[in-house]
Structures are given as structure tokens and as C-alpha cells.
């Protein structure tokens, strides 16, 4: 059953070209010429065709200006295509730009009705869900206060709560998951997986590659308005990283080599008590364990643990051999490498962690796992800036000052 079909869809925008004023025209004539002149055409989408089956979650990724937002706008009927046909089988709702339909002068309650009906809900339907919407947003106390007095957090929570109570057949998700604090992101993700389990067809348009990989059954890569890759999220994301960051695609490389001497079987994360978790705190212990199976003896192997920010930027990589300089020889059979860090340097946020194994002599990876694990870092030790440095402080003072200080104490 196909819920969504794009059939050779193209969208052309006209970019207005202003007269530079050199032509000898009077101001009025020039303005008229500017308004009516032929504009330069820009194809935001060119012959895009794809289908989404019922219950499937499709991720759409691509660099800025690739046409992602155009697909979103076409699907949500904000604008019409220049040619081609889009068939939507079912009620489609878009969870985009939370709170964009709010009016600051109206109360929270009035805004629920306003925003709900803009998103296509009936008043009766909203009235039935009103209590649940308020409860989920956690703004019961202020529900009859104009939303202009709301904090930005309350604003977002109320907006999300309304959107989360829509019951679409097909859900369109934008970067909503990227806004709000870590706990809000988790709440969003939970709600989305819940909808998935109930069989809702989802189109997820995002820069958040980790979320795309985790949530989607299939992904589609756009560049310059055309589809350049479609398939398993892992593969499509690798292709995206190749064009966006110039990364070497591991999947392609491993495809060249049919036989992997070593395979990474699992990557797991542990807290200080050796309990598996994905939640960590800045400046607190962090451990990872890479389980592998070696099919033959590998002399001088190296393991890597690397980290991406939520938008897919490569931020960090740690090597086993760089740590102690000793050679690692893998004997055939199963084994594991553990990584221990007593103070995690990452600032609060959502990251993805991956692992790779390679031969030190050859620069090629033997096996590579991209962003396999989500990592939620919450505020532990507080520092400003982009990372935390493991440290301790020592204070040196003259003996006089020290005795004085002791006297004060």
C-alpha cells in the first residue's frame, strides 16, 4: 500500500534580478521592469520521484539548498509544484515550526483552539483532547494567561503538545527534534517512535543524521534538487557524509573487500558502575566496549572510537595505539576492547558514537560502524565553552596569606 507518491515532481522558483540602474530608464519604468521582467529560473526540485509505503518511516537528508524544505512545502501544500504529481493517501499533518500559529495576545487555551484548527483539527476534537494537551504540556497553571507572558520553554511545550495530539495517517516531521533542551528532544523522539509503532507513515526531513539513522526505515539523499541516493539509512548517510565532509565511505570500501578479517559485533556504553546506559554527564566517567570477532590473525591492529555531533559533524576520534603505543595483535576468535574515561569532555547535548578497526600499516578500515549509538550528555560539571577538560586546581599562596586565611576560617 503506497501512502505517498511523488511522480516526476519539479519545482521552479523565480529569482528576481534587480536592474543595476545603468539602463537609462526613469525610476517608475525601472521599477515596473524589475517587477515584470523575466526572472532567472532556479529549479529547487527536478524530476523527483519516490514512494512511501504504509507504516514506513522515510528520512530525507541533504545539504542546505538541496530541496528538502521544498519537498516539505509541497507535501504540506504550502506551495504548488511546477510540474508533476503528488498523491497523498490519507490525512497528512505536519509537525513543523512549533508554535508558529500562536497569537501572543490570546491565552494558552484560546491558542490551543486557534493552533489546533490551523493544523486541521475540528473544535469538537480539540475540546475532547483539551485536558490531555494541557497536561502533556505542563502549563495548567498558566492556561488562561496570554502566551506572550510564557517562557520560551512553555511556548515550545504547548506547541509540541498540540502537534503531538494530532492523529494523522501520515506525519511530516521537520527539525522539530532539534529545538528545545535534551529532555524535550527525548520526549519528541519517544512520541515519534510511539506513532511509528502504531503504523503511522512518517516523512522525516532533517539534518540530524543520528536521528534519521535511528528512526528511519529508508532514507533519501537530495542534492541540487535531485535524488542522488535512496536506500538503507546507513548507506545513504555514508554517501551524504562523503559529499558533505569528504569522508571516505566505509560501506563502499567494505563492499570492495568481501572478506573482513575482523568484524565489529557490538558497541556498548557504560557508566561508572558498569551499567549499560546512553545517558552521561559532563566531567563524569564514561566507558565504551567494542566487541569484535577476528577471523584471522591481525598484527598491529588499531581501534578507533569517534564521535559526531547531532547534525552529523565529525568532532572527535580517539585511537587505541595513540594511547599507549603498544602493538595490538588480534588472535582469531571473539574479543573486546574497553575504553575508559574518568572525566567525559563533551558538553551537554546529543551525540553519536561509532567505532572502527583498522590495520595500522594500511590506512584502510577493516570494519567501521558509523554513529551506532546515541549518546545523551547532560549537565554534570559545569563549564562554559565547547568542551570540558579533565583537571584539578591547586592554589599557591604565600605562608602569611595562608595563615590569615586559616584564621578567617
Amino acid at each position, binding site marked *: 500500500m503506497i501512502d505517498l507518491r511523488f511522480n516526476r515532481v519539479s519545482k521552479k522558483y523565480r529569482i528576481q534580478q534587480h536592474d543595476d540602474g545603468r539602463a537609462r530608464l526613469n525610476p517608475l519604468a525601472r521599477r515596473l521592469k524589475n517587477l515584470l521582467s523575466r526572472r532567472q529560473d532556479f529549479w529547487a526540485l527536478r524530476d523527483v520521484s519516490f514512494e512511501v509505503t504504509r507504516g514506513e518511516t522515510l528520512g530525507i537528508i541533504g545539504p542546505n539548498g538541496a530541496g528538502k524544505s521544498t519537498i516539505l512545502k509541497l507535501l504540506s501544500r504550502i506551495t504548488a509544484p511546477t510540474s508533476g*504529481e503528488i498523491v497523498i493517501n490519507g490525512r497528512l499533518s*505536519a509537525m513543523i515550526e512549533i508554535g508558529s500559529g500562536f497569537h501572543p*495576545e490570546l491565552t494558552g487555551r484560546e491558542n490551543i483552539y486557534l493552533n489546533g*484548527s490551523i493544523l486541521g483539527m475540528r473544535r469538537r476534537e480539540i475540546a475532547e483532547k483539551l485536558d490531555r494537551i494541557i497536561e502533556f504540556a*505542563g502549563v495548567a497553571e498558566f492556561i488562561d494567561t496570554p502566551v506572550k507572558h510564557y517562557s520560551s520553554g512553555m511556548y515550545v511545550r504547548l506547541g509540541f503538545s498540540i502537534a*503531538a495530539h494530532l492523529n494523522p495517517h501520515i506525519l511530516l516531521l521537520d527539525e522539530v527534534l532539534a529545538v528545545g533542551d535534551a529532555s524535550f528532544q527525548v520526549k519528541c523522539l519517544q512520541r515519534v517512535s510511539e506513532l511509528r509503532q502504531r503504523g503511522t507513515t512518517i516523512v522525516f526531513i532533517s539534518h540530524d543524521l543520528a536521528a534519521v539513522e535511528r528512526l528511519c526505515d529508508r532514507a533519501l539523499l537530495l542534492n541540487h534538487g535531485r535524488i542522488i541516493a535512496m536506500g538503507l539509512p546507513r548507506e545513504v548517510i555514508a554517501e551524504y557524509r562523503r559529499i558533505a565532509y569528504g569522508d571516505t565511505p566505509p560501506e563502499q570500501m567494505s563492499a570492495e573487500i568481501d572478506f573482513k578479517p575482523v568484524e565489529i559485533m557490538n558497541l556498548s556504553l557504560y557508566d561508572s558502575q558498569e551499567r549499560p546506559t546512553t545517558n552521561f554527564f559532563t566531567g563524569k566517567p564514561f566507558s565504551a566496549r567494542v566487541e569484535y570477532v577476528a577471523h584471522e590473525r591481525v598484527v598491529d591492529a588499531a581501534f578507533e572510537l569517534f564521535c559526531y555531533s547531532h547534525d552529523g559533524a565529525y568532532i572527535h576520534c580517539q585511537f587505541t595505539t595513540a594511547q599507549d603505543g603498544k602493538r595490538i595483535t588480534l588472535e582469531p576468535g571473539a574479543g573486546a576492547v574497553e575504553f575508559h574515561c574518568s572525566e567525559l569532555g563533551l558538553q551537554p547535548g546529543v551525540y553519536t558514537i561509532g567505532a572502527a578497526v583498522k590495520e595500522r600499516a594500511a590506512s584502510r578500515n577493516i570494519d567501521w560502524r558509523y554513529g551506532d549509538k546515541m549518546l545523551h550528555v547532560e549537565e554534570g560539571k559545569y563549564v562554559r565553552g565547547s568542551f570540558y577538560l579533565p583537571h584539578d586546581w591547586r592554589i599557591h599562596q604565600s605562608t602569611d596569606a595562608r595563615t590569615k586565611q586559616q584564621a578567617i576560617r
Partner: protein
Amino acid sequence: MASSIQSKTIGGALPSIDARPVTIIRAPSVSPFGLIKNLTELAHYRDLLYTLTVHRIKVRYKQSLLGGAWAVIQPLSMMLIFTLVFSLIARVPSDGAPYALFAYVALLAWNCFSTAIANSTAGLVSHSQLVTKVYFPREILPLTYVLAALFDFLIASSVLAVLMLYYGVPLTLNALYALPIILVLALLATAIALLLSATQARFRDVGVAVPLVLQLWMFATPIIYPLSAVPARFRPLYLFNPMVGVIENFRRVILRCAPPDFNSLGTSAFTAALLLIASYIYFKRVEATMADII
């Protein structure tokens, strides 16, 4: 606390499978069947029309001391000024009725018309935030301004009742003709609101020109003077203005307790209907890619 809430079901049951609407989106085109489809869709969104209209009325008078009283103050003060100038100084005829009442009745209807148009022209552009983010039939936006103006008209009508009592003008059953007359006025206002708001999305000149045009239009309509004062040779041209039939007949059924002149009212109604269909088709054509240019 948050997690305990999450575990509860959100949204209730899944929508039933058989109720799946199929939407087909294609490049914009003009077709006669489109009109019926558009109207069906508009009917589907009637709750939004209602909510936005209520919102429009509420927001307009929020954080203002006099609130809804402004709906009365506007035509009332215009009436006082016109009475002062055209009755005491210039001595304009008023078909035998007290000039204050004569002017107020016409101003009541005219104000409704001009407020609807003046506000709705900018209606789409001032909601560009919404227009570029969510889909709903865009005609709802200008329509809400027309409905809000009709609401103000109702409030201001109460003052008319007081004035009529004061001057001892009786009200007859013929006053019920006011309803179809106001309907024609509303259709005409809607037609022009659709036309102007869609054009404003592309050419902002419209917003600047509208107050000026409305002022000229007011003087070309029998508001401060009676239709009988217009020289006979100008009449045919004058009657081209569809608001003439509306205003003159409105005054006629209220003040002169006579049935309307069906000829002029019919012409106005016909013009309004034609204009409405044309401007609705035009509006929907512009709407398709409005978000790109707004």
C-alpha cells in the same frame, strides 16, 4: 513527572482506515470543477474560519480601554462631523429625514464595507508567518476580516436604534429587507477583499492605494448626500457603482419604511455575484504559489 505523563496514551484511537482522503497535488490550473472543490474544502475548514474570526474580534479590542465601544465611536464621530459640516454649514438635502440619522444609516453600512476591505487587504501579508508555514484555504484570512466587520456593524446598529427612537422614526417590516441588502454588501466586500489581498501579496502598492480609493469611493456613493441630488445626466454612469444600490436601498428600507428598489438592488447583487466568482477563481490561482512571493 514528565515521563509519567508520556506513558499515558496520547491522542486516543487511530483514525479509522476507511476514512482516508486521497489528495492529489498538481501544478496550478484553472478549471470550473475547481470552484466546487474549493468550496467543499472551505466548508471542511469552517471551524478554523470560526476560530480565527472570534480571535480577530477579541484581539482587536484586547488591551484597549474602550474595547468594543470603538465599533460605535467610529461611525458616530463621522456622523457628528458630517452633520456639522453638511447640515449646519453646507445645508445638503437629506430627503426629509433628520440629517444626523440620514448620514448615520449610510455610514453604518459604508463603514462595514470599507473596514472589511481596508483590513483584509493586508490580511494575507500580515499573516505571512502563517501562510509560509501551514496550509489552510487562504481565503479564510480575508473572510475573517469581512465577518469581523459585520460583527462591528451589529454593535453599531444598536446606536441606530437609539437614534431612531430619539427622532421618532418608526420601524416597519420593510426594515427586514436590510438583511438581503447587507448580504449583497458582504458579497461585494468579500469579492473585493479576495481580489485586493491576493494582489497585495505581489504588489504592496495596493495597501497604500486602498485608503485613498476607499475615500474617493465614499464620495461617489450617496452617503453624505441623497441619490436624488445627483444630476440626471450623471445617473447612468453613477449607477455603475454597485455600492449605490446597496447604500441607497439600505437607507430606503430603514428610514423611509419603503420596500427596496429591486432594479438597482438586483443590479448590485448581480455585479457582486459575478465579481465574487471571478475574484475567487483569481484568488485560488494566486494562492497556489502565494507562499513563494509573499
